[in-house]
């Protein structure tokens, strides 16, 4: 469905210098620095997949998304959506009819007019037949709970409401592929859950291929079967979410707060140096690989060697794993 073949994107930025004289120099100099935003990226995404596209800011993910939407053209290589390159003039409109985009930071709706007006205009733009339009609108309205503010001007909506509206607007024309760029940014926990649930529901109903970029690992964990990690323009990881955990083993973190202290060197000797210690918020955090060390052994040791007030156990989070991947830059 979506294929990226040896995609590279290079930007030229004028070199900026500091200070007032720097500003003047920049005006007159033509020197530019080359920035390789995306470097020989390859992947293939099939119909109905939900893929999480993760990367630090500036890693190249918005650039890749923009190329897939036809906003930017690759410097080298190509992107094919159903065999067509979306950034090429003759294919552009054809491809755009089948994709939907949500930019989390910006709305695509008409700011001053009631929400329903934006939908009507979108119907004309995407040439959606009346019957399909009504059906989908009713469906989306119920999934995303839009009825309460259908007639309110978009500028009066809260962030959560606006995001739901944007989502509906993007799905209205039944796109085969949806690009969601930070759809939950700035939202509170409850609203986030609702939106993720809505996306799941829509996916289940319509088998839409979804590509999601976000910084929220919970969203990824809840939604995506597969993740692609990009850093400094290169793909560090591409595979099922489960693989990420497995690759990095199952890390456990035990938090202990006690009345007295333990001898940590002795502690670690007992466990063949497999433990990592940190003090976080008055708790001693003990991190270890659950394949190599048994949690129950660690707990027994702790209870035997100090007067425990409180114990917490955390297991591996995607966040940590991704952090490690960033740091190691390999998998």
């Amino acid at each position, binding site marked *: 469905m979506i294929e990226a073949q040896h995609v590279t994107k290079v930007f030229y930025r004028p070199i900026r210098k500091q200070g007032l004289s720097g500003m003047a120099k920049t005006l007159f100099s033509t020197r530019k620095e080359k920035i390789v935003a995306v470097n020989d990226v390859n992947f293939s995404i099939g119909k109905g997949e939900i893929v999480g596209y993760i990367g630090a800011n500036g890693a190249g993910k918005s650039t890749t998304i923009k190329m897939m939407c036809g906003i930017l053209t690759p410097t080298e290589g190509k992107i094919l959506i159903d065999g067509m390159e979306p950034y090429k003039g003759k294919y552009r409109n054809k491809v755009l*009819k089948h994709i939907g985009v949500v*930019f989390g930071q910006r709305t695509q709706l008409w700011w001053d007019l009631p929400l329903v007006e934006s939908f009507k205009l979108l119907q004309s733009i995407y040439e959606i037949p009346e019957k399909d339009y009504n059906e989908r609108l009713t469906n989306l309205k119920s999934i995303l709970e839009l009825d309460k503010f259908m007639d309110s001007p978009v500028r009066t909506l809260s962030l959560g409401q606006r995001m739901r509206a944007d989502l509906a607007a993007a799905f209205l024309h039944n796109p085969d592929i949806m690009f969601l760029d930070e759809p939950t940014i700035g939202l509170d926990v409850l609203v986030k859950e609702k939106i993720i649930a809505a996306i799941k529901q829509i996916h289940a109903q319509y088998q839409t291929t979804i590509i999601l970029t976000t910084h929220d690992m919970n969203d990824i964990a809840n939604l995506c079967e597969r993740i692609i990690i990009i850093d400094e323009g290169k793909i560090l990881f591409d595979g099922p979410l489960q693989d990420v955990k497995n690759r990095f083993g199952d890390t456990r973190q035990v938090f202990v707060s006690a009345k007295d202290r333990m001898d940590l060197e002795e502690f670690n000797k007992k466990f063949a140096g497999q433990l990592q210690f940190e003090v976080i918020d008055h708790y001693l955090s003990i991190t270890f690989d659950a394949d190599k060390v048994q949690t129950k052994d660690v707990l027994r040791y702790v209870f035997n060697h100090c007067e425990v007030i409180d114990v917490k156990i955390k297991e591996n989070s995607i966040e940590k794993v991704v952090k490690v991947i960033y740091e190691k830059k390999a998998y």
Partner: protein
Amino acid sequence: MLKYLKIYPKYLAMAIKSKLAYRMDAIIGSFGFIASNTAAFFTLYLTITAIPALGVWTIEKMVFLYGFCLVPKAIDHILSDNLWSLGNWMVTKGDLDPILTRPLNPLFQIVAREFQYEGFGELILGIIFLAIYGPKQNIVWTFNNVMPLVLCGFFAIFLFFGIKLITASLAFWMKRSISLMSGIYELSNFTKYPLEIFHDIVKVILVAIIPFSLVMYYPVSYLYEGKSIWVLTGIIGLVVSFLVGLGYLLFKLGLKRYESAGS
């Protein structure tokens, strides 16, 4: 093509309704333009009346010319005001992105989205000038001179559009081309003066390069001389089409550049 004809009224309706919330702005904006045009007009008046006669040009003729220049400018102002945004900040702020993800011509989306009520101030002023001083001219108004004049006015709308489009598209290279846009747009103010009084350089600029005078001044002045303006109208039509075409070409090239350079 048909799709655009069907969808333009819808966009326009949205645009018209959008600005209704800002009614006060629009009304005062209209007054604003009326004020600046009135001031400009009186400046013209005081300049011209300071000397006995500028050739054949009397007050009646000058006001009529002024009105004839204002009406197409106003109509273009009302319908394509968003082009200023293109020259001002659209390229750098990334506002083009949502536009490029829709299966609809980008230029259409930019222009159709805004209906600038403020232009009505200029339009009303221009119509008043034409209505009051039209009958006062030494011309017998027949189909043979009204029709081509109206056509010239119609072409003039696209002249303003084309020139704005050309200068706005330069923003794809310059990041912001608003200063150039306004500088050249200002030149249109000089078409209200009799062309003969200017130095040759100015004449060349206003007739051949940025042809405001060709499109708006010449038809009126020919009529005063009793000449037929059908041929002139044809020429004007060609010139304007050329300019609009050039503008659209620049826009497309600029867009390509945007796609390869990002923002």
